[in-house]
């Protein structure tokens, strides 16, 4: 079946069905990463610049840090990605012991919307912009980083990539990807920056490192 829009485009450009594709212009060179420590420092620094809270954390301190977060932010309900690493850290157990109700990450959207805290990992991290890159699957539902009023990402140094070239080379065949660069924001009313419009108001990033 011929498509009239494609036909019109060809007619306008003076091309035919057989016209070959021209050569795409070259893209410039990818970025080279620095030492792992300076990449981590840069990443956390960018998260802070975006009004997020970024910190390095030893697995031994996760109990106490979660306890502080739950108390400070008055967290009663939480939902957590069902990934092996988060299970290994015992996140849901700790939250349970703190009296936080755990909602399944595959629960209905109405239930998820009642959560105070959503905990995810990330698939990749971009140090230049302080960006979390998240894929999506049954274990890693999209709503966990979106519906709760606070988003906590528990990440590791091996998730760091030098730049978007590397991330896309690995991830472009995913059915869904999202870059999260800071908490939800707007400046639509008299240019006053307001955090937490439709997405989370607070973004915490914990870089797990011995």
């Amino acid at each position, binding site marked *: 079946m011929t498509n009239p829009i494609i036909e019109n485009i060809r007619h*306008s450009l003076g091309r035919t069905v057989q016209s070959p594709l021209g050569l795409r212009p070259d893209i410039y060179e990818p970025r080279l990463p620095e030492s792992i420590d300076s990449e981590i420092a840069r990443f956390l620094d960018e998260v802070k610049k975006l009004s997020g809270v970024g910190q390095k954390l030893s697995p031994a301190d996760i109990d106490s840090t979660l306890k502080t977060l739950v108390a400070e932010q008055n967290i009663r309900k939480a939902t957590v990605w069902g990934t092996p690493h988060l299970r290994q850290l015992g996140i849901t157990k700790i939250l349970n012991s703190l009296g936080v109700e755990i909602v399944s990450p595959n629960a209905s959207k109405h239930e998820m919307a009642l959560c105070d805290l959503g905990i995810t990992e990330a698939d990749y991290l971009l140090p230049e912009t302080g960006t979390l890159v998240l894929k999506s699957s049954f274990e890693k539902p*999209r709503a966990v980083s979106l519906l709760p009023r606070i988003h906590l990402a528990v990440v590791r140094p091996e998730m760091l990539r030098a730049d978007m*070239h590397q991330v896309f080379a690995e991830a472009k065949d995913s059915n869904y990807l999202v870059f999260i660069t800071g908490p939800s924001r707007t400046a639509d*009313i008299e240019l*006053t920056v307001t955090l937490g419009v439709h997405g989370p108001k607070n973004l915490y990033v914990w870089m797990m490192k011995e």
Partner: protein
Amino acid sequence: MSQDTHPYIGFEEYSEHVPPSIPLAVQQATSRFVGGRAARVAELPQWEQLRQIGSDIRQHTIENMDVYLTSLEEKVKEAGGYVHWAETAEDARRIVLQIAKENNIKNVVKSKSMATEEIELNHALEAAGIESLETDLGEYIIQLAGTGPSHIIVPAVHLKKEEIAALFSEKLDINAPTDPIELARIAREVLREKFLNAGMGISGGNFLIAETGTLVMVTNEGNGRMCTTMPDLHIAVVGIDKVIPDWESLIVFLKLLARSATGQKLSTYTQFITGPRHAEGEFGPKEFHLVLLDNGRSKILKDPIGRDVLKCIRCGACANVCPVYKNVGGFAYGSFISGPIGAILSPQMLGTQAARELPFASTLCGACADVCPVKIPIPAILSHLRRRVAQGDAFALPTISTPIRATANLASLALAQNWIYRLGALVLPIINPFFRKNNWLSGMPYPLNRWTKVRPLPPFGARFRKWWNVRSAKETESTHD
């Protein structure tokens, strides 16, 4: 709107009655964006190189658009999505309504999209009894106010917080405070319910990646994620000009877009959507529809000068630096896209009958071309379209009034023929005494009064050659001293 039916855009008429609050609000916003952009650009030593690559890739994509769109369609279908082609705005509205009807949809949530503004989708949905709610905070505000956007990036920039509070109080039947943070919180609560209960989400798209059939959406508030994650149905209405070859080229545009638009390195949320969800529990829509909108774009491609407008990535940087836009605001441009880019898009999309004033709504200062992330030569296209309006070309007949055209033709003849010009310079001073007031000529007869009622003319009498000879002689003298 089609080429023949769009109402006349009276830029001049409007700009004579701009409410004084508009330039003030617009200039506050634009100066913030200009400052932010400059800071981000200064951080990137390779900025100019990036712009050049961005421009080259857009050029290349335009010249091979048939190939990339064909690949895009194939890949979206492979990923389990549906592709619909809409030749006109009417077609696009019909397609969206059809999908809504088949799925018995009553409530739609919309994220900000210039393409759906272009096809005036909200009116069509409402006429069919479907609630269609804008969810970007700025768009939500202007939807409550019942107006269109006045800026590509901050659509409600022309409204003060007191006006917005009054609007919320009236429409939502509450007592809204004037604090912007409180107002945003109120909108969050109202819209949260709508997101969770809507049957369908409608979005636009910033880019379409031909390589994998991926829709790329850039937002800050998270409403774009809500619209494409919560409802079971997602329809994206996107202009065919948004296609790009591959993920490698996308990197260039992501680096250019947020820096040029808001002075961010990246916007808060960038989504890459390839078809529908794979598992129910992961959230995201069960069905993904892509409506590819032509609405005159394929015709614009025919003009090798004018078609550069299709390189645009909708950052709004050209408006932020435009001295005309900053004084009249977005509504003066009478269409969904305002500022310099609107002034070269509308005359091509809506025709030089309805939009014939827009190519003249510029000082041709060139600030827009200096900041354009994909190097669209906006002033050159404005001149090109001025010629189309005045003289007509292969695309349109002339549309300015006969006396103006006659005057312009005379002037162009006189300036091109040396002897006529010199004759005029000799003869015209004769009329000076009849119209001279102090050192100016005013109150000239028709059609010259079109000029003199706005501003007086200097008296005829310039003798450039004479002046030049005298000056050269003087200079020669002084260098010999």
